[in-house]
């Protein structure tokens, strides 16, 4: 037993031994933190550097597709459109990694302004309309009237909603139902909140995986993640953005019974 050897020593020696051990642990922790910070910095740098050649590829392909260098036939245009779409998808993933890395390094700041939740929900839904139509989903909106304007970072709240809505669309088989609701939320330590719900009739998530989905690099089902071409960072970023505001994010779901994701945003920022 580990205790036996220590117990046999005089008290002073036992204390000295424990102090040495504690110092050793502290050194290890500091070293690991340092390594983690270096890797985060590497992630931020590499994503930034990946963006430049990717941008050049997309611009070159767009020049070709626009016929600026001469006319194209349909097959050539389709092929070039494939390059552009692939490039833009890669850029979106690189951006997600960059956002995550900046969040992990606590380099994300909130730019708050007052805005109406109603308009925000409608804007985000309008942006997702082409995808919803493509997958033949029905989209329902249920927004409580006279919600107070919130003082928050509009871009980040839109990002969270866009991410949840994107997941709902992706993880629901074609012809499903997706909905967004906004209502008064439970008060937080920062005061009153607005709660936004994004629901779907999709594949659902087993209860034992509910915590996992918010963790970075987590993939509940690796094959699903590959099919839905994510970085595995979307929900981790969403949680980070919500928590930066002093809100919280959670879900209700069972396998095969669809998912409902909820998040709250305090009406006024936490001081």
């Amino acid at each position, binding site marked *: 037993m580990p205790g036996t050897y220590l117990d046999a020593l005089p008290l002073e020696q036992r204390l000295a031994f424990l102090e040495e051990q504690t110092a050793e642990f502290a050194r290890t922790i500091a070293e690991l933190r340092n390594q983690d910070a270096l890797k985060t910095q590497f992630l931020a740098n590499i994503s*930034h550097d990946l*963006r*430049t*050649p*990717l*941008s*050049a590829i*997309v*611009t*070159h392909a*767009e*020049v070709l*597709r*626009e016929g*600026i*260098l001469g006319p194209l036939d349909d097959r050539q245009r389709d092929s070039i459109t494939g390059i552009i779409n692939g*490039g833009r998808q890669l*850029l979106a993933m690189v*951006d997600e990694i*960059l956002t995550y890395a900046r969040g992990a390094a606590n380099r994300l*700041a909130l*730019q708050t302004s007052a805005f109406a939740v109603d308009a925000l929900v409608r804007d985000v839904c309008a942006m997702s309309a082409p995808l919803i139509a493509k997958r033949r989903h029905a989209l329902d909106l249920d927004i409580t009237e006279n919600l107070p304007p919130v003082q928050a970072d509009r*871009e980040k709240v839109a990002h969270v909603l866009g991410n949840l809505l994107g997941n709902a669309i992706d993880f629901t088989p074609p012809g499903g139902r997706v909905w967004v609701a906004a209502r008064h939320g439970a008060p937080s330590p920062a005061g009153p909140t607005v709660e936004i719900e994004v629901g779907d009739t999709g594949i659902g998530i087993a209860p034992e995986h509910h915590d996992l989905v918010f963790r970075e690099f987590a993939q509940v089902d690796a094959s699903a993640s590959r099919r839905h071409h994510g970085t595995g960072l979307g929900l981790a970023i969403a949680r980070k953005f919500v928590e930066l505001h002093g809100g919280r994010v959670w879900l209700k779901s069972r396998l095969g019974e669809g998912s409902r994701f909820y998040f709250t945003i305090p009406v006024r920022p936490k001081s």
Partner: protein
Amino acid sequence: METHVLLVEDSALVVGALRILLEETGHRVSAAATVSDAVAAARREHPDVILLDITLNREDGLSVLTELARTGDFPRVVVAVTGHDDHALKERCLAAGCREVMLKPISAMELPARIRQWLAE
């Protein structure tokens, strides 16, 4: 007279793509990859438009504008180009005199029309 665009950009790949786009749509293009080259080119050539990448290799692209403003060589239109959407950065660009901030990759469909629009304003 054809519109002259100065590209301030440290990636030869991006310059290559934008040069084809702009030259093929009737613009004259020159390029600079460092702050000092950009300042010298702007003073020598008086471009109509500067597309300014604000993260040049270890240099702050906006310092090109500080230097040009100092000697009264500020061009008609400066548009900042950046890789990431950052509110604070955007504010800094506008405060430095940029007409607007464009995100990479610059859309080939939009750029020629936008240049016409900026110069018409």
